[in-house]
């Protein structure tokens, strides 16, 4: 790992100022994505700004009809939170499937979303549930937030502070793991919301997380896995690599989406 200067701000404002002052500075929270890429020298930020000592960034609470999760809440905290378990059990279930127990003790929801890895789990939930990403500057809707591979609407000095999830009527996340890396080869988050149905896919798209509108239309008419029978996904724009062909992933999306709808309806 190359040398860097380490900063430990006490507030979000201080952290943002450090980002303004130091070009190419990177934020670090749990470090479970950033540290590995720095070790491989794929990234060499000259400044690291540590968010883990900022108070109040990791809270989980209900605010009206929204579940609000602080940016530095770890995957383990989300997975085990009784508040999340009550409000959106599918989200707790998703968090419990990220990495392994030791990784879940360090990795954070804000870090995962800021990185926007195309095989990460959280983006599927954020897009399917229609969550709002709250930053030190503004509120971003999920649809405008994700902008492709490892790319988001965040500006260089913008810091995610929390994520607000409106409560769905029904939801489920089903992940088909890569047997070696345990990342999602295909992960589908299905959410039946008061006004619509959303189906978001992670792991498969060469441009990151995306929605399957044909499935959404069918499910909006009747929320049952049966309505997906015969519907297929095009292999265009899907990842085609040593882990699986685009055609295989297209097939998996249909299978995994059906399982997700089944899981969502089984939960009542």
């Amino acid at each position: 790992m190359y040398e860097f200067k380490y900063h430990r701000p006490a507030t979000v404002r201080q952290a943002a100022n450090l980002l303004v002052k130091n070009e190419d500075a990177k934020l670090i929270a749990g470090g479970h994505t950033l540290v590995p890429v720095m070790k491989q020298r794929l990234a060499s930020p000259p400044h690291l700004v540590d968010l883990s000592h900022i108070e109040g960034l990791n809270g989980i609470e209900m605010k009206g009809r929204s579940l609000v999760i602080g940016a530095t809440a770890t995957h383990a905290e989300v997975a085990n939170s009784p508040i999340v378990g009550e409000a959106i059990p599918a989200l707790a279930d998703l968090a419990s499937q990220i990495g392994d127990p030791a990784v879940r003790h360090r990795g954070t929801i804000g870090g995962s979303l800021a990185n926007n890895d195309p095989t990460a789990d959280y983006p599927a939930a954020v897009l399917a549930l229609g969550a709002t990403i709250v930053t030190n500057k503004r509120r971003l809707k999920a649809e405008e937030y994700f902008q492709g591979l490892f790319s988001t609407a965040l500006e260089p000095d913008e810091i995610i502070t929390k994520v607000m999830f409106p409560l769905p009527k029904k939801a489920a996340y089903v992940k088909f793991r890569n047997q070696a890396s345990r990342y999602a080869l295909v992960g589908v988050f299905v959410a039946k919301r008061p006004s619509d149905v959303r189906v978001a896919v992670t792991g498969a798209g060469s441009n990151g997380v995306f929605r399957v509108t044909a499935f959404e239309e069918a499910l909006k008419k009747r929320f049952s896995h049966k309505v997906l029978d015969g519907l297929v996904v095009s292999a265009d724009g899907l990842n085609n690599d040593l882990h699986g062909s685009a055609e295989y992933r297209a097939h998996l999306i249909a299978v995994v989406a059906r399982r997700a709808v089944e899981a969502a309806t089984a939960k009542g």
Partner: protein
Amino acid sequence: MAKISIIVNGNPVNANVDPRTLLVQFLRENLRLTGTHVGCDTSQCGACVVHLDGKAVKSCTTLAVMADGHEVKTIEGLAADGAPLHPMQEAFREHHGLQCGFCTPGMIMTAIDIVHRKGHELSDHVIREELEGNLCRCTGYQNIVLSIAAGAKAMAKSDLA
């Protein structure tokens, strides 16, 4: 350089470290606590698992500066020199849970974390799921699972957590 103060195995440690020092490097190279191993160096194998404020973490993916002000427990912290082994260590010995032994410290630190989170009655299924982040290159999982189930029960009767 960055000044850090960490409680390691109950003892306060103050040091000046280069911020890029990984926690595992700090433990092994600065403190000579070489029970914590580096297996894969990519956060997958779990040979480097230690407890940070009581929770299992991968010390090869944690910067030493990020442990500043926190408590770290390593395999060396489970039983003092000459003292009886921790019940989980004893269970690994009793049930042949180690083969070459390289992964064992990480396995044991993970096993104790599992007990803290999931209690003393652990099914094989739970143990296997929870061991996802620890790889045994001898592929000796059968006896590791037996050891953890027995160690979890033994911990219930022991003062050592």
